[in-house]
């Protein structure tokens, strides 16, 4: 239940609204570590609706996501936009530790007071983001940034949570990413609002651009017949539960761009495309749809999490669990009947 903030958090909130970077840094830790009161804090912060444009960068490891993000950030800064950046790197499942190295590629931005960079470790989350990245984006949005850039861990074909976090998803590929069949398999192809073939000065780049465009045409063609495209179980839709109903609404077909992030080639084009996508999102009503979808999933997530917490912190439930185990031992019950008893108690 949300209630008044305890005094330490109230003070943090005040400094947060005051625009102090230290307070933002601490607020992110509060949320990332899910410390007591973090939900009340988010509740206060979310009273202001979303404002910032959220741009996600995803793609395989080594595609140049950090470098490209850094170029885009630099470009935004020349227009005096205030920027937040969240860069996610993996946590080791062996040690629980992580080496977060995305700042290395953003060194040029390190002392710019108009930009705030935060590295996050996945801490066991498998979707390409950390468990609380979406909440952290909310914090950055509420802090007043015009634009928030998100970089996922290097992804393959299943880490698609970025669609639930960003308004605009940029899929970054390189000529070495393999032929377009790889992207057509499933996953990355469906989530992109914009494709970027980075390191476009390398052999094979033109070919990949052409293949991608062709693949997109094929998809556009099947979508018209609509039924076959959604035949059977639509995995993509399940994965993108937090986004809108249609993966990409009508009226936007993802362009394929070429860049060389190292030299900045093609970045202007990318900026124009990002702006065009933003314009389309706003005009078509798609942005509101996506935000609505995000809110829905946030509510579901909180309910899920709180139910779980309530259950496993309740002594009666834990006692019931123990007794149930005994009954199963004596073949009087099964895990299912015990689970139902517990659910019954919780939801009564």
């Amino acid at each position: 239940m949300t209630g008044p903030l305890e005094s330490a958090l109230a003070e943090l909130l005040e400094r947060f609204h005051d625009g102090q970077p230290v307070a933002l840094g601490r607020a992110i830790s509060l949320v990332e570590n899910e410390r007591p009161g973090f939900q009340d804090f988010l509740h206060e912060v979310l009273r202001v609706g979303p404002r910032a444009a959220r741009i996600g960068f995803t793609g395989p490891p080594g595609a140049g996501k950090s470098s490209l993000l850094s170029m885009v950030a630099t470009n935004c800064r020349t227009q005096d936009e205030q920027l937040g950046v969240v860069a996610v790197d993996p946590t080791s499942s062996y040690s629980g530790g992580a080496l977060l190295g995305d700042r290395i590629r953003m060194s040029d931005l390190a002392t710019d007071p108009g930009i705030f960079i935060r590295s996050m470790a996945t801490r066991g989350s498998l979707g390409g983001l950390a468990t609380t990245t979406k909440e952290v984006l909310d914090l950055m949005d509420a802090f007043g940034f015009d634009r928030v850039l998100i970089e996922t861990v290097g992804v393959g074909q299943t880490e698609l949570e970025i669609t639930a976090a960003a308004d605009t998803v940029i899929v970054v590929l390189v000529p070495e990413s393999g032929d377009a069949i790889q992207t057509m398999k499933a996953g990355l192809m469906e989530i992109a609002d914009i494709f970027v073939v980075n390191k476009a000065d390398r052999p094979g780049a033109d070919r990949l651009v052409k293949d991608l465009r062709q693949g997109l045409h094929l998809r556009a063609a099947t979508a018209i017949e609509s039924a076959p495209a959604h035949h059977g179980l639509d995995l993509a839709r399940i994965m993108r539960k937090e986004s809108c109903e249609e993966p990409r609404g009508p009226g936007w077909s993802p362009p394929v761009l070429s860049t060389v992030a190292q030299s900045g080639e093609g970045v202007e084009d990318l900026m124009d495309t990002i702006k065009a996508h933003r314009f389309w999102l706003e005009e078509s009503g798609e942005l509101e749809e996506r935000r609505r979808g995000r809110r829905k999933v946030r509510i579901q997530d909180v309910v899920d999490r709180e139910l779980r917490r309530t259950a496993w912190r309740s002594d009666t439930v834990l006692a019931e669990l123990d007794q149930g185990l005994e009954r199963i031992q004596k073949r009087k019950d099964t895990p299912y009947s015990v689970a139902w008893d517990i659910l019954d108690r919780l939801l009564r």
Partner: protein
Amino acid sequence: MQSIDQQIRVLVAKPGLDGHDRGAKVIASALRDAGFEVIYTGLHQSPEMIVNAAIQEDVHVVAMSILSGAHMTLFPKVRELLDGAGANHILLTGGGIIPVEDIEDLESRGIGRLFGPGTPTTEVIDYIQDWFEDQETS
């Protein structure tokens, strides 16, 4: 579930002009393997860059590697900037080629322990872990 609010975050920084980051990388990897979240910023960081990163990343510890002989300037400078930014809760520690007298001098001026060449990485890990536990309990 493991208590992730115990997750220690460390910024490993390499200030100044010397380009020898082997030591910093060894420490960064060792801390990662000890279960810390390590933010590594790369070479040639100015004190301002380091303090900025420490605040944005909300780290518990800043560990600097200095082999250039500029430790008497850099450690106090970073400490001063951290304190000025309202981040006096952050531990500043580090290592490098630093004479014993200088280590004593710096430690008396609010810098944490400093480690010389050949220090086993476990010693550094234990030091940070002990400091962190003291913080949590105090």
